């Protein structure tokens, strides 16, 4: 094991890199997860009709964080693991980077378990957790084993296959009540802050960029596309929030676990009486790309820090990804897991990345 690997910036062969525009799909794919099925309830708990303001604020803050990330990465060249090494030295960077690897993997576990919960509640009440988790992890393993270009391809694939679901918001908005969005700004600052904190969980996903940055062919040009990606996510969340707020009365919304799935219950097409089953099934694709990116970044981290071949690192990580969901058996536990990762992500984005940014301002950049 060579712990000094992350000392040097990563080298990625030209053929293994991806075109800068494709970062758009990676950003959208990693940001949008199962959270979109239920996040509105959590924000609306604090600020009811003003939830959409929080979505906009969250989206804007994400742009700032993304900008900071690109600044750091552009200046110091390389990935998070290399930056840790440069900033904190070999031994201090080790636990920090390991924490990141752990975090990347746990985001995958959260997504997988939350999705399985939705499937158990809506489609197959008795299905054992491990069957679905096995199916997903096997597929993820297959994708990630093929390398980052394939992961990117899947991200594109997922985007194209699922973006049409945005249009289903037409139905709840048609049956909705506009007065549910009024009056604007009717809460205290504290409520907005609380809501903002819960909102962040849904916007997590840009931090994967720290790991796959070296794979971008033209990082400076990619920044624009990353921002467009983050804006797309905000747009989709905005639409979800507006339709959910308009369609449900506030107390009704608080009684629902997955408001977006409940919204789909009103979608009736001539050939399809019940849309939510199609919706859940298609969401498997959204989950898949989240898992693939999470597994890839965590295995990449192991490769970078411990100098273990990524192909080998995937195996134990996949097993962890497969086995851990089984231990979260109840709704309560799944919720708690989501809360913990949300809190961690909040401090990661709004405290740790700015901290890195400040350090990077003080440090000299890489000579290229």
């Amino acid at each position: 094991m060579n712990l000094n690997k992350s000392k040097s910036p990563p080298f990625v062969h030209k053929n293994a890199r991806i075109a800068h525009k494709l970062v758009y799909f990676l950003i959208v794919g990693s940001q949008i997860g199962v959270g979109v099925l239920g996040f509105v309830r959590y924000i609306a708990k604090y600020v009811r009709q003003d939830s959409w303001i929080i979505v906009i604020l969250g989206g804007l803050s994400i742009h700032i964080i993304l900008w900071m990330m690109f600044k750091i990465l552009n200046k110091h060249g390389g990935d998070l693991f290399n930056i840790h090494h440069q900033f904190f030295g070999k031994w201090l960077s080790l636990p920090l980077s390991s924490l990141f690897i752990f975090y990347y993997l746990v985001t995958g576990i959260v997504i997988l378990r939350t999705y399985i919960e939705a499937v158990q509640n809506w489609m197959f009440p008795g299905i054992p957790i491990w069957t679905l988790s096995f199916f997903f992890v096997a597929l993820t393993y297959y994708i990630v084993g093929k390398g980052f270009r394939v992961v990117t391809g899947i991200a594109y694939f997922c985007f194209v296959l699922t973006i049409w679901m945005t249009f289903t918001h037409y139905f709840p908005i048609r049956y909705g009540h506009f007065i549910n969005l009024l009056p604007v700004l009717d809460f205290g600052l504290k409520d907005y802050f609380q809501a903002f904190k819960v909102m962040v969980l849904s916007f997590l996903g840009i931090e994967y960029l720290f790991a796959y940055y070296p794979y971008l062919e033209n990082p400076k040009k990619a920044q624009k596309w990353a921002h467009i990606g983050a804006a797309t996510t905000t747009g989709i969340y905005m639409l979800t929030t507006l339709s959910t707020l308009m369609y449900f009365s506030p107390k009704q919304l608080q009684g629902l676990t997955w408001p977006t799935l409940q919204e789909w219950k009103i979608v009736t097409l001539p050939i399809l009486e019940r849309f939510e089953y199609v919706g859940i099934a298609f969401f498997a694709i959204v989950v898949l790309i989240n898992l693939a990116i999470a597994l890839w970044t965590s295995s990449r981290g192991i490769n970078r820090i411990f100098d273990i071949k990524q192909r080998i690192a995937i195996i134990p990580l996949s097993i962890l990804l497969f086995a851990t969901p089984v231990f979260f058996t109840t709704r309560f536990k799944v919720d708690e897991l989501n809360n913990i990762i949300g809190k961690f992500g909040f401090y990661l984005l709004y405290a740790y990345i700015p901290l890195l940014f400040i350090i990077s301002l003080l440090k000299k950049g890489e000579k290229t």
Partner: protein
Amino acid sequence: MKKFLSLLVCLLLTACNTEKEVLDDITMVRSFGFDKYPKKNHINGTIIYPIYIDEQTFKMRDLSAAGETAKEVRAELNEMVSKPLFVGKLNTVLFSQEIAKEGIMETLDMLQRDPGVGRAIYLAITKESTKEILTIDNNLANHDGNFYSSLIKQNENYSNLPHLNFHTFLYAYFSDCMDPILPYLSHRNNSVKIKGLALFKKDKMVGTLGEEDLLAFKTLYQNLNEGSYQFSSQKYKGNLEILKSRIHYTILAKPHHRVILNVNVKGRLTEYTKVNAGKPNVIKGIERNIEKELNREGYKLIGKFQKLNIDPIGIGEHVRSRTRAFDHKGWNKNYSGLDIKVKYQVKITESGISQ
């Protein structure tokens, strides 16, 4: 390794079969009815479902059972059929007015929790027992099990019944300042007739609205593009077909002392007992008359709601949307004494194809 994996995945896929949901092997409940049962705290449930004779033809059958809760009724019914009950294609749920007066949320909760039940299904209250309604003439009118839902749906789309379904009921039920309403049906001449609306306070039925009030109510409840209004005076009778009706609220003397509901109605005459309806001043006169009549009816409706202390139109919700730091408890307390006015503005654009 890859081949092995893909093989495993295939095996796994075949393992998650759902064979019990094949159409021929389930009892597909189309309508559910709930009545009071003579025994204390018991309810009687009636379902109708199709039985297939051969591949193309089927007959509707009905079945009843009693139990303490809706879930128990369902279990009882399940014990009486050869194929398991599924509510995925449920399209109407009926409640008799006796049971509705005691509250229906407990029963609806079973349906609300079941992921198989849609939100676009129809709920309705029946004057007679639902068993009586559901068992009339199943073979002709209700040959496909869609009769009750189609009845309500077409009246919502082409006539004076407001747009109501399971979702709107839950929406109003969970609202702070709004009360649910449901269509009110009754048995008539071997068929079912929409008699008006059942009014609710929370989940308990507290009154009804006659069919003659439906149009005035619908214009106050929602924006609409269809409906017809029968008007009359000592001199003439007539019918106004509504082409467009839009409502907006004026809230005066904050905090919420006076509310004015402005309704703009556009329509055309389809019946008029005096022939000379072509002259502009005659049309004007008719417009004023209809306005006066609608104002009176709207006022009467609001008065009735205030007396019952219910708010099916959701006036409170509109006031909330215009008031900062709205106090809904205070509003609900003062509601019945508030000054709420209705102001119609009618415009007749055409008078049919004859002058």
